[in-house]
């Protein structure tokens, strides 16, 4: 039995936000489930090698129209490389890229129906905000009046009108970020690529900008592909998330799915806080898997994962799914005794860090409204942890 420490222990408060978004504006929006739709973007067996180094390894992804698709992964996992191949700045070593049914693998960047917002914004320092935003339209040979109209529209959408005559170095970071976005959408491309678009902003501005991105994406009805290493950001904005690690695609799913049903230990640990118990499969019955944990505990969980008896697996449990109490629950599976070692009081909720007899640390979460009715739990209390059979997720990878 092992407890995986989530990467974001420190900002535990934020793990609340990292949960699946509840009032998703795209409820019922799931084109990837519709077999009649053909994807807007298709990465087909894309591999990119730099000399001997494999930056992107045989990645296949379908992205549909009007999606807000996130490429998520740690630094150096190949997210930017994948995006740059779509923009045309890098050529795939193997595989094809298809946009709207057209193979664009060999198309130069200036012919692609794609616009990109750069991480460093890449605003032209010698041009005013207005001319920066109008740059793409001018390349199309659009008339002056028409350009002015479209630029004004984009500036209006991002509240940039008062800065029209300024140069980029006379703007704040947040304003520059909006100019970069305005420039990327001014041509009304069908596909907008964003490489860590909010990486340079501070946390508060960043959350504001995330909602702005979502608003723009929805009002323009454009397909957005965003690269980020911030799981919260991906969870907030995306319709679907592709998690990458070391050039490999790990899982593509909705934020809710990724949170509830992570495929591997890596993803479980990467998104939100999680406890992972290690064990071996002892029994597989219809819809249920029983696991013998290393310390003699028995777990049972509903799962459709195909495993065989004797296989080593992990069991992932989100802290909010674990009940914590002073009384021994009358069940002999999914129960672990322990001692409260640490409590993180976070206003409406508290995190309980419990040390088991075997010395593992488990995090459980409890809403504080319960305090008044239930017995309160404090430091050094002997407690019982338990969870229902549908709470755990079996990890094979």
């Amino acid at each position, binding site marked *: 039995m092992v407890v995986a420490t989530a990467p974001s222990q420190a900002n535990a408060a934020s793990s609340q936000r990292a949960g699946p978004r509840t009032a998703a504006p795209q409820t019922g929006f799931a084109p990837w489930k519709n077999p009649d739709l053909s994807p807007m973007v298709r990465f087909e067996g894309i591999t990119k090698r730099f000399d001997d180094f494999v930056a992107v390894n045989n990645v296949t992804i379908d992205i549909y129209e009007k999606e807000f698709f996130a490429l998520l992964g740690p630094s150096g996992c190949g997210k930017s490389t994948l995006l740059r191949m779509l923009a045309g700045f890098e050529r795939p070593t193997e595989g094809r890229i298809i946009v709207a049914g057209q193979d664009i693998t060999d198309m130069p960047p200036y012919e692609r129906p794609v616009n*990109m917002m750069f991480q460093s914004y890449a605003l032209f320092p010698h041009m005013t905000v207005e001319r920066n935003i109008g740059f793409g339209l001018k390349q199309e040979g659009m008339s002056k009046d028409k350009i002015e109209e479209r630029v004004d529209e984009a500036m209006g959408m991002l509240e940039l009108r008062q800065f029209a005559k300024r140069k980029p170095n006379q703007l704040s970071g947040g304003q520059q970020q909006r100019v970069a976005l305005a420039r990327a959408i001014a041509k009304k491309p069908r596909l907008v690529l964003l490489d860590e678009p909010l990486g340079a902003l501070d946390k508060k501005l960043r959350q504001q900008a995330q909602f702005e991105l979502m608003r723009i994406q929805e009002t323009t009805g454009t397909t957005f592909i965003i690269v980020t290493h911030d799981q919260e950001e991906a969870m907030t904005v995306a319709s679907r998330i592709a998690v990458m690690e070391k050039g490999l695609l790990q899982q593509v799913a909705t934020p809710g799915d990724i949170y509830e049903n992570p495929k591997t230990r890596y993803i479980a640990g990467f998104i939100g806080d999680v406890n992972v118990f290690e064990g071996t499969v002892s029994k597989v019955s219809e819809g249920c898997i029983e696991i013998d944990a290393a310390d003699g505990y028995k777990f049972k969980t509903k799962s459709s994962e195909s495993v065989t008896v004797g296989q080593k697996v992990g069991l992932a449990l989100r802290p909010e799914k674990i009940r914590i109490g002073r009384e021994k629950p009358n069940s002999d599976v999914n129960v672990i005794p322990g001692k409260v070692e640490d409590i993180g009081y976070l206003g409406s909720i508290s995190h309980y860090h419990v040390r088991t007899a075997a010395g593992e640390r488990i995090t459980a979460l409890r809403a504080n409204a319960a305090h008044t009715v239930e017995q309160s739990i404090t430091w050094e209390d002997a407690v019982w942890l338990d969870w229902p059979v549908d709470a755990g997720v079996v990890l094979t990878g």
Partner: protein
Amino acid sequence: MRARISDLKRWYVIGAPFLWLLVFFLIPFFIVFKLSLSDVATAIPPYTPTFSWSKGISAFISQLDFENYTFLFSDPLYINSYLSSLKIAFFSTILTLLVAYPMAYGMARAPKSWQPTLMMLVILPFWTSFLIRIYAWIAILKPEGFLSLFLIKLGLISEPLQIMNTTTAVYIGIVYSYLPFMILPLYASLEKINPSLLEAAQDLGSQPWRAFWQVTFPLSMPGVFAGCLLVFIPAVGEFVIPDLLGGSDTLMIGKTLWTEFFNNRDWPLASAVAVLLLLVLIIPIVLFQRQQEMEREAGR
């Protein structure tokens, strides 16, 4: 005590450049200026008046006049020399820019590990004497020189080229000699350009050639400006190149000045030529200073 030392230090820091300017620029300039107001004389030194304490300052000043300047304007030789110098400097600056830009661009685009080496190669000629390098050009350009021999061998020409002792040779000499002064500021400004700006331009639908004119070139303007002035200013007063490579029909003010000074031994007139040359160059020099100033401001 300590305050006085730091005071002294401050005075030194402020005073040093002024002192430098005074000793190496202002005093020589006033000597030349005074000389330009004198008259030529067969004496040692070859001008009059010379200052003597016994006659006093006012008597000395009363003998100075602007005769030399009026003479400069009355003889078209001088005006033509100035105009011809400006013309040659102007066109050789443009030629130098045309040659230097692709080189600087290539340097800025070369792999980072190569750049110091390329820079070294640009500076390398400075390790040989300027005069020797110009003499080498004589060996190349003269009718029986390397260039003609080479082209005849290739069968491209049948007669030796008549380049030596023409204005063309002067252009070649100036472009060659001042090339590093153009390349270095160009390289400095091209190298600073963020490559993602070009990606952004292409991403927005600009073909590479248009992206160059719309992004790279405007952003390299500080380098173009600095390089052009660094070539133009010394080229106007250039003496060695027209003297060694140019013919008798190549009129340049530096050569005229030399002739007045050493052949005609007319120091006052030569000084007037020099003072006027400085006045001609003051506009580009001030422009250059302002541009450097702005660069420094922008760099902050």
